[in-house]
């Protein structure tokens, strides 16, 4: 019995030693001195494996990891400045006075080239105009009627249920009138452009007086640093005083751009006011419900969390 245990002890000590080699235990016994120094080929293999791993990772990153820029900075366009739009805050509606001014800017400036085909006249009623005003606007335009008894299509004045007509009959006519460039429909332009309000505002106000030295501007194009490619077929349209606001707001370039951008944001998201109000309400309600559910959980769990489990050993019977 004694001899066996004496044999066993060294082998167990060695086994423990090799397992815990990396720890500080190695120095505590003299038995580990031989196995502590690893052979050279192990060091070499580990170094080579590390170098191969690091090298292949670096090669992979070089191939696939880097961000690829297909465009030059000029083709990318200058990134739009961030502006503190009040109507973009979570608890603010559109400024409907600004919407009304913005629609005036659209009607008097933008509408000569840009369509707004997804917006019906009726959606302005109760948002920025009265019924009578909108009926008058709608009646200024002509729409096709249903075919009559002879199958002929006549013209009728517009109604509130009609959509805003586009300035050109079709895309080809629009291109022909604008030197081959198609003025995009503005109904969803704020949602459809990177940068949204900031981009459109920067584009409208970003026309320099003359293109910077070295910039190449094609025939019939205008220079705008915010437009991807910097050559834009649309010229600067917003000049101070182009529009005369009925509420007396000074019609500066930036004021008009701000108003029309807010208006275009409304055409892209007419539901925004209601959406935000409903969101605030539901967050408030859900906060209350969450608080109640936390309270119920604590109420139900209180006896379980506070109970104490005691082991009372059986009393040994006295002999």
């Amino acid at each position, binding site marked *: 019995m004694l001899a066996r245990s004496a044999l066993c002890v060294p082998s167990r000590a060695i086994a423990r030693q090799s397992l815990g080699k990396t720890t500080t235990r190695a120095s505590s016994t003299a038995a580990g001195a031989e196995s502590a120094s690893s052979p050279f080929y192990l060091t070499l293999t580990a170094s080579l494996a590390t170098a191969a791993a690091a090298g292949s990772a670096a090669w992979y990153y070089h191939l696939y990891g880097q961000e690829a820029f297909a465009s030059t900075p000029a083709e990318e366009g200058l990134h739009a400045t961030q502006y503190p739009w009040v109507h973009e805050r979570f608890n603010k*509606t559109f400024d*409907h006075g600004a919407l009304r001014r913005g629609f005036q800017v659209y009607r008097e400036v933008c509408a000569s080239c840009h369509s707004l085909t997804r917006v019906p006249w009726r959606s302005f009623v*109760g948002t920025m105009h009265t019924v009578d005003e909108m009926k008058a606007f709608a009646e200024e335009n002509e729409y096709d009627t249903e075919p009559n008894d002879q199958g002929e299509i006549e013209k009728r004045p517009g109604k509130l249920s009609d959509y805003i007509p586009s300035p050109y009959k079709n895309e080809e006519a629009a291109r022909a009138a604008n030197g081959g460039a198609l003025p995009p429909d503005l109904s969803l332009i704020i949602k459809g452009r990177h940068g949204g309000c900031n981009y459109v505002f920067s584009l409208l106000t970003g026309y320099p007086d003359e293109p910077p030295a070295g910039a190449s501007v094609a025939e019939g194009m205008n220079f705008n640093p915010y437009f991807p490619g910097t050559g834009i077929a649309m010229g600067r349209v917003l000049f101070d005083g182009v529009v005369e606001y009925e509420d007396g707001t000074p019609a500066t370039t930036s004021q008009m751009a701000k108003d029309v951008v807010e208006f275009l944001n409304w055409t892209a998201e007419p539901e925004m*006011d209601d959406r935000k109000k409903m969101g605030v*309400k539901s967050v408030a*309600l859900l906060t209350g419900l969450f608080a109640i559910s936390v309270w119920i959980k604590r109420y139900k769990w209180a006896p379980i969390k506070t109970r104490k489990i005691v082991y009372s050993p059986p009393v040994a019977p006295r002999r």
Partner: protein
Amino acid sequence: MAGSISNVIYQTFIRRNAVFLTTIFASAFAFELAFDTTSNKIWDSVNRGRQWKDIKYRYLNKDEEEEE
């Protein structure tokens, strides 16, 4: 004391199922009314002067003057 109050509540509202259900429905109705009214008021005060109902008097009055 508290025991008697809760006892009164139990006897009045909870004991009979019909009364209990009616209480629940009536209080849900009342809560929604109160919640909507309050939150609409807060919303309108946060957005004072921005909504159509705040500015429409300018344009409605003008129409009436024209009619007169």
